[in-house]
């Protein structure tokens, strides 16, 4: 067993290598090799081969490429702007009008798309022209898109939950169930933020348009069906226990094909583009994940779990205190890191700490994903912010930063709610899985 100081040094070496701009996968691999060469000897180093095979030959993880593929097909079915319009029909009456549509559309889109870059870029391209003539405060427009795009991982089926589940041996189905209520609450809080801003500073809001005739609204409603049907089928099968997470992902792919066909977008060329995007995102996540598995394996042999558990017990911290410390840690880390490296790079060390403090693994998964969402919109590195600015092509990035501030604060409030009322995450998995 190695002591906490060696563990800390190892963690710093890994972070240091990351900051030198090495590939994130390489930094984990190097850290794992150093650890096993120093303390365990050649057998542990040579175990890489078996770990590579064992980590990747996994039926549950097959859900990652399948969910990504499902998203890529749906994204290419050309429904985004129709979906946006239909959502606007029903959300426009709220104070803050069209801004709510940004939240709703981004949330729907990002729930099916595996890439937050793609979400932010697509929703910006759809939404920004509609705002041109309506005199909304630009910052609110940009902020609401960024906030919406960050929702994707919390609302199932997200990839982050699958990765967390694989790394910690936590059931992906339970994690998905746990994400629903906090995801919905987060969406409502964002909308509440917009309503609050609209009432407090009416000048920030633009002109509202007259509601469309009901007949037209109902006619457009069908465009919301595609994402809802997919969501219903995929999640329904998981919650009723009819299908495993991977099976329902496969079902989702099969249902997405006729939807793309109905919209006249299904073609061999489109499928090939979807395949390329799918494998690219899959491999991006899996190379890091594979190396993280090997690192986890080495950390297990080194007795890191017991060592860290000892630290937690000797400090006498409560679960709530530990979660707040972690929240601050992740807020700081989120300034520099994107979702995936942050999740995969810290879970091997942080998870044993939380287990020792008696925190439920399912709950911690939700907490972790929320931290990832915050990192997406925290300047100056939040990738989505730059993407939105890039699509916008005018003004400065500062306006995007300012726009996210109210939503960033809302996320902090959400973090507090989650830490102090863990039941909002744990309630649904308990009643659906016992």
């Amino acid at each position, binding site marked *: 067993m190695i002591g906490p100081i060696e563990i800390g040094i190892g963690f710093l070496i890994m972070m240091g290598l990351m900051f030198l701009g090495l590939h994130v996968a390489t930094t984990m691999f190097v850290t794992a090799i150093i650890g096993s060469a120093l303390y365990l000897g050649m057998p542990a180093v040579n175990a890489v081969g078996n770990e590579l095979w064992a980590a990747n030959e996994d039926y549950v993880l097959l859900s990652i490429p399948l969910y990504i*593929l499902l998203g890529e097909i749906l994204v290419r079915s050309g429904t985004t702007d129709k979906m946006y319009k239909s959502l606007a029909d029903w959300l426009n009456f709220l104070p803050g009008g069209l801004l709510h549509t940004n939240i709703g559309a981004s949330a729907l889109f990002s729930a099916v798309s595996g890439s937050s870059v793609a979400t932010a870029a697509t929703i910006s*391209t759809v939404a920004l022209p509609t705002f041109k003539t309506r005199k909304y405060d630009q910052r609110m427009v940009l902020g609401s898109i960024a906030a919406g795009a960050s929702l994707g991982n919390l609302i199932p089926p997200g990839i982050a939950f699958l990765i967390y589940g694989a790394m910690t041996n936590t059931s992906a189905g339970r994690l998905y169930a746990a994400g629903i209520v906090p995801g919905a609450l987060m969406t409502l809080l964002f909308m509440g933020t917009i309503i609050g801003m609209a009432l407090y500073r009416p000048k920030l809001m633009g002109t509202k348009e007259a509601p469309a005739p009901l007949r037209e609204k109902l006619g457009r409603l069908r465009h919301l069906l595609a994402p809802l049907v997919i969501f219903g089928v995929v999640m329904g099968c998981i919650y009723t226990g009819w299908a495993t997470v991977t099976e329902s992902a496969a*079902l989702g792919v099969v249902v997405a094909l006729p939807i793309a066909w109905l919209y006249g977008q299904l073609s061999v060329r489109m499928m090939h583009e979807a395949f390329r995007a799918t494998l690219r995102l899959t491999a991006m996540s899996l190379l*890091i994940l594979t190396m993280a598995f090997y690192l986890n394996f080495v950390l297990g042999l080194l007795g890191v779990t017991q060592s860290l558990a000892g630290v937690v017990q000797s400090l006498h911290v409560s679960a709530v205190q530990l979660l707040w410390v972690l929240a601050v840690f992740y807020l700081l880390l989120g300034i520099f890191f*994107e979702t995936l490296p942050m999740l995969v790079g810290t879970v091997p060390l942080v998870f044993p700490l939380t287990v020792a403090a008696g925190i439920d693994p399912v709950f911690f998964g939700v907490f972790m994903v929320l931290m990832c969402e915050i990192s997406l919109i925290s300047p100056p590195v939040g990738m989505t912010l730059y993407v939105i600015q890039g699509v916008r092509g005018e003004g400065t990035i500062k306006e995007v930063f300012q726009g996210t501030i109210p939503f960033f604060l809302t996320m902090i409030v959400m973090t507090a709610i989650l830490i102090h009322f863990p039941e909002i995450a744990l309630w649904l998995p308990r009643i659906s899985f016992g």
Partner: protein
Amino acid sequence: MPENLFSRALTRLVDTLVIIVGWWLVALSLLTCVEMVTRKVFSFSLQGIDEVGGYTLAVSAAIGYSYTLITRGHTRIDFMVGKLPFKARAVFNCLAMVTLAAMALFCISRAWVVLSESIEFQSRATTPLQTPMWIPQSIWFFGWIVFAVACVYLAGHSLLLLVKGKHEALNKAYGPQTLEEEIESEAGEVLEQVRQQNALKEAGAQS
């Protein structure tokens, strides 16, 4: 990548593999649905979809690695490196490629041991299918070989650029993607589609 026959051949090979894996994923999804229906309705189960699914992930990942490498998608934290003067940046970009190549080489040397032991001991999966392990492992190993070859090739090229002092070219080819490049590679055609729809709408509004 440098402009030459080898780069084109490599890109072509990787792209073809990606497309094959893609269609296989669709086929496997269909099979999974068939299996679910027969299991529910006829209480008859096609054995081994999950096992094949596991192999599929290993193979898709191994093949995806090279595609992601070629399209510069493997994740790096560019926060500090991006702020360095361009010569120092070139050194770090080269270092990232060389270490990645070293990792890939080490991985294939160990992956080969896994495969050769499966062949030597004629190992089979402990499942109803009793798959001889060398079959899925050979395809998986092939994916890793392609990845390692691509890594070594690109690392060599980046070293060459560094030695020749072509820092700008090195940063352009091996630095983290710029924002425009990243948007293009993750959402390029989708955005094109949306822009076309926007243009159509504007044309409709004017007429």
